[in-house]
């Protein structure tokens, strides 16, 4: 089986920057100027889309300041009486959020970095190295995409537990480390690269290792960014596996730790739970908003170097 349906990378090339706002892209062709109605309609639709995305988050933010009796009231109370941080204090006192945050950070940074590296080296091997069974190897890697997570969880738990890796970073990271999606995307992208660059590098006597990191990686920045986004997001938000493999609060990641705020056999304190949800989502949103600018510049400079 092969997923090699097309020769064209499905992912943005350097001139397809997804986030640029006109001014950054430079290459954007002038559209025929349109005036009047379509524009207003466009703005309205855009406003609608933005509102649909933002309003639930605002509701969460407001709820995080509400006391129990402000939440359980009909008709609903839109704005909390005070913006005191008592729910946040409550959430931080109930569970060690600092630890959750550090654990999420470590597993995400280490996990995503290794995963991207594995994807790059595997794709490089499959495209540029000589090996009799490389189609089979590539098939083996991509086929893994079809194996549902839930299938492998019980056997993996047994393995990790036998190794004594419960409550460890390697236990959290290793089982999900292999790169199938990334390898697939990188390969599709590598196939589009001009052979001349690598030829020149080979003539210079650069090793494969050097060729990968000095020549291939810089001109693949957009694809790497796309894979990185997906890897980071999935590592950061992974839920079921960390839930099983960690039983010490000090080693929990944010999504697992958040559920500890739900009360069983009692009344869920929505204010505290929403405060916890804010604590989890807002840092990610801030990083994402900051990073999207960074990614843009990173991609542009990468394109120039290439």
């Amino acid at each position, binding site marked *: 089986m092969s997923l090699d349906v097309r020769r064209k990378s499905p992912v943005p090339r350097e001139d397809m920057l997804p986030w640029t706002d006109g001014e950054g892209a430079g290459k954007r062709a002038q559209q025929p100027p349109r005036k009047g109605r379509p524009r207003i309609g466009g703005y309205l639709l855009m406003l609608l889309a933005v509102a649909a995305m933002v309003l639930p988050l605002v509701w969460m933010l407001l709820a995080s300041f509400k006391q129990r009796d402000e939440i359980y009231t009909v008709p609903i109370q839109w704005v909390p009486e005070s913006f005191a941080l008592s729910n946040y204090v409550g959430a931080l006192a109930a569970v060690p959020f600092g630890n959750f945050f550090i654990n999420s950070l470590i597993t995400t940074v280490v996990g995503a970095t290794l995963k991207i590296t594995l994807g790059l080296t595997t794709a490089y091997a499959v495209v540029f190295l000589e090996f009799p069974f490389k189609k089979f190897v590539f098939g083996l890697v991509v086929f893994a995409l079809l194996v549902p997570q839930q299938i492998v969880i019980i*056997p993996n*738990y*047994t393995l990790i537990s036998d190794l004594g890796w419960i409550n460890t970073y390697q236990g959290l990271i290793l089982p999900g480390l292999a790169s199938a999606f990334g390898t697939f995307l990188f390969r599709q992208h590598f196939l589009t690269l001009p052979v001349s660059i690598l030829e020149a590098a080979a003539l210079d006597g650069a090793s494969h290792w050097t060729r990968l990191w000095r020549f291939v990686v810089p001109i693949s920045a957009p694809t790497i960014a796309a894979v990185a986004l997906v890897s980071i997001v999935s590592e950061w938000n992974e839920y079921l596996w960390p839930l*099983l493999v960690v039983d*010490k609060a000090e080693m929990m990641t944010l999504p697992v730790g958040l559920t500890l705020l*739900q009360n*069983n*056999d*009692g*009344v869920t304190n929505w204010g505290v739970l929403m405060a916890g949800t804010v604590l989890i989502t807002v840092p990610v949103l801030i990083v994402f908003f900051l990073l999207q600018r960074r990614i843009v510049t990173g991609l542009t400079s990468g394109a120039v170097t290439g």
Partner: protein
Amino acid sequence: MTASPFANLNRRQLLQLAALVGGSAALAACGGPAVGQAGGAATETATDWASVTPAKEITWWSNHPGTSKDIESEIIKRFTAESGIKVNLVTAGANYDEVAQKFQAASGSSNVPDLVIASDVWWFRYMINGQILPLDQLAKHLEFDTEDFNSTLYGDYEFSASHWAVPYARSTPLFYYNKAVWEKAGLPDRAPKTWAEFDEWAPKIQATTEITPLGLGKGTSWSAWWFCNMLWGAGGAYSKDWAMTLDTPEALEAAKYLQTIIYDNKSAAVTAKDQVADFGAGLTGCTIASTGSLSGILASSKFDVGTGFLPEGAKGPACPTGGTGLAIPADKTPEQQLAAGMFLKFLTNAENTAYFSSNTGYMPVRTSALEGETMKAVYAKTPQFRTAVDQLAGTRVQDWGRVFVPNGDKDLTTALEKIMLQKGDPAEAFATAATSITKSYEENVLPYL
């Protein structure tokens, strides 16, 4: 950065790898269950507990029921001061199910705790899986004074003449009413004694207010729990031992009563999401909720809250118990088991069960604790709690068909939701559940007994 992972593999894993590459069926040997061997519960081993020295350190998996982490830590501190045994308190999940998930996944691995939360729907499965130790001999050796446990609460953990857990954070459903609504409707300041009385009172509430008199909760682990009250009160039961009895006239009667108050009298409604929240916000005049919700309800409602026994049915009062006990895993060393047993005894002694109860809202599990100083102080401060404790005397052990059979509670919940939410035919809904539970029993329980 990309050093070969083979460097980190031990010989066994390399062998596994080789086995896989070779497509060998030898893989069955690694991890997972042993196929074809006789399974079933652990047997009371003839451990001579007197000759065992307790371990110096044990691990306890808890979900801190009722946000009790600080309380549990305090009790541990006292225990360590007294015995010198260290107890590692581990947050093994947010609720009973998560702890159970982890405990079952950990089975056979080195990651099994010395003491574990065993809720009313889980301990039996731990038992038939052979994961936990029968406690009678250990309790006898440690002089647990099991006579003093509330007999229903302790009796919940009895099967084939052994007790497999000890009650810890136990609760019952409780009737909560809004005193302001009651006053407006001109009702006496108490819960209705019977469902018949409720039927007389409900029109008065409907006449004086806009709200639904009774809010009913739903969802797994919940509907089929409080419905015990109506079912048993009508003289029915989910099952008698392992035989499902959902087709009896009494059981159908109970389900029809439920439909009558929801669809005909409109004196009850299934909550949109959370019956406790609806009640606290004044959307319903009364509700059935866990005793564990008491402090939350008192904190979130803006009106005076009254509590009472669950209304009686035609055949008298009926109230189930729920919550969790604690069990000792079977495949630990006798030293660890003994230390866990000592801690278990300490944790559930009269003083500590009262201390735990007064801080969480769960029931004191020992009869002698009910009238102790600690609990008296609680009653003085929160008289509503007294009702919950008094009701304990009339509780009944759960039907096996709901709590012992995998999927039992889920199938019953589905049946009740069909009855409550879609006005489904009780006979049909119950028959489907009974068939499914019986099948699950034959497949998942019977072979292990």
